């Protein structure tokens, strides 16, 4: 099938067919270019469906495009961005998102790590626990939102009921702007702790045993073993798990939409929700695009900082 190819094959080098053999059509249909043919579909797809809409959005953010009766599309220059800086709701929702992300991911990491450590022994019934533990993250976020909305109900919900049985005071959960964000964070922790747990459990399982045996011989306590042996060896897996969780947490929308629709007030409104409300709820497309773009830039900066901190670039290879 490869006509007249001169294959240089040595034991240290992979066979590489030299390019540009045959006429144009021959080359196009030969196997030589298959490496491009395989990659081109996905690249083209992303350019069309990923990059082009982003450029479009960028242009949009400089326009005044409020869909309504008799309004024209006008060039707005930087006025959308100026309005963004002055928009207190934007900063408030950004703060909500940051608090949510930081709190949720930290708790999920600590709890997930703890559970993984607990289950990393040879206990009976391990796989049963494992299956039970990963169920929450498999549930549809919409379902999780509604379920917890039922649980959090102040008078009829099971949580307050059980608190009452233990003679603990009722918590207003979703109905008070003081506790709503915390309630939503708890829900997210419930759903996504299994994610960190399952990744770390597999990571812990794959660690070599020798360092632990050496440490036991040297008489290290379990705390010392944890900090000097377990933690350094698991750090790259931990970093990836946290990074993956962070990427998802900043985009949080589903459970907030279903549980509180951003309320009470805007105490549980995330940045994504605000951008959606402005862009496709109020249909101020120009300003909405500006908000979305600002969030995009912030996300990019955030993740570039994270990859530098975690030095995971080579993991991406």
């Amino acid at each position, binding site marked *: 099938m490869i006509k007249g190819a001169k294959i240089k094959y040595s034991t240290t080098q992979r066979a590489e067919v030299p390019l540009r053999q045959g006429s144009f059509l021959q080359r196009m249909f030969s196997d030589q270019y298959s490496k491009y043919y395989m990659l081109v579909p996905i690249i083209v797809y992303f350019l069309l469906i*990923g990059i082009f809409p982003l450029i479009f959005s960028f242009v949009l953010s400089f326009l005044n495009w409020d869909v309504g009766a008799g309004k024209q599309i006008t060039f707005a220059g930087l006025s959308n961005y100026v309005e963004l800086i002055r928009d207190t709701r934007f900063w408030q929702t950004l703060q909500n998102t940051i608090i949510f992300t930081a709190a949720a991911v930290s708790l999920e990491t600590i709890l997930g790590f703890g559970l993984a450590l607990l289950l990393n022994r040879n206990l009976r019934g391990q796989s049963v626990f494992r299956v039970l533990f*990963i169920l929450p993250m498999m549930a549809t976020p919409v379902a999780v939102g509604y379920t917890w909305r039922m649980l959090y109900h102040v008078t009829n*919900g*099971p949580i307050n009921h059980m608190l009452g049985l233990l003679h603990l005071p009722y918590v207003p959960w979703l109905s008070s702007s003081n506790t709503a964000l915390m309630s939503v964070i708890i829900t997210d922790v419930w759903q996504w702790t299994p994610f960190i747990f399952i990744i770390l459990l*597999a990571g812990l399982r794959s660690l070599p045993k020798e360092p632990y045996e050496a440490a036991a011989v040297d008489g290290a306590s379990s705390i010392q073993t944890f900090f000097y042996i377990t933690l350094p060896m698991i750090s790259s897996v931990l970093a990836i798990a946290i990074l993956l969780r962070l990427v998802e947490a900043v985009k949080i929308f589903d459970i907030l939409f279903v549980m509180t629709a951003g309320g009470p007030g805007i105490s549980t409104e995330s940045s994504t929700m605000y*951008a959606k409300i402005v*862009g496709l709820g109020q249909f101020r497309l120009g300003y909405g695009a500006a908000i979305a773009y600002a969030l995009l830039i912030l996300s990019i900066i955030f993740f570039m900082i994270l990859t530098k901190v975690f030095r995971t670039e080579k993991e991406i290879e």
Partner: protein
Amino acid sequence: MKISQRTKKRLGTSLIYFVLIVVAVVMIFPLYWTFVTAFKEPRDAFTFPPKYIPYLQFKPSLFAFKDIGLLPSAEGSGTHSATAILGTLRNSIVIAVGSTVVSVVLGSLAAYALWNFRFRRWKNKDIAFFILSQRMLPPIALVIPYFILYSRLHLLDTVLGMIIAHTVASAPFVVWIMKSFFNSIPKELIDSARIDGCSHFSALWRIVLPLSLPGLAATSVFTTIFSWNELLFAITLTFNKARTFPALVAGLTHGSAALWWDISAMLLISMVPVFLFTMLFQRYIVSGLTLGAIK
């Protein structure tokens, strides 16, 4: 009083079991609650004090399922119609399968190319980063331009439009996982096949993919679940014809008072397929997640 070493160890193990059981209960209880509420009659669903145990505290009934139209009921039509629910379920399934197929095709090709070849003009690492960074895009930055573009292209409220949108998020994931799985295949296999006259496409189809079926299974499960659960694109880009099930469920309480038994029944419908999937493909899910994270 000296506690012997063995007793200490037993206490420790019992404590661990206790904690694990508590955690398991915490994980399961919300799901149990939804399950149980779906089988309650309206007067039992939202009472004080809440009723936990079927048969002991309330009589389970299929009222909710009849009410949403899935089961025939004697009293005539209920609150929702079966066609709406079955229609959205069908949409969700079609979109999930469609975006999985497209993502897996695009992604496997790209993963093979990145794994097998050395590109000269742009380094492999950079190409991989370009593809994977698509995953980190906040979908909100895409939703507004998609809305405008789709309305011009008449893709709004279509299944095809949703498949296209979901693939953008799923394909990078496929590339990442498949590349990890490909890494464990020796490249000499490909070389010997090519010496025998095999093209790269054949090599991919006949050698590499069969060897990495677990990876395919894992990624397919993930992309299907992701598409099934997805909400933001679903509520902004679909309305009637291509409405997905989560979008339908999300709109339930924004109107009249919440009918928790109906909602629970619908939640069960959305959760049960995913749970079945999880139980069946549990091994693949775990290996897929972890192989991506642990090299």
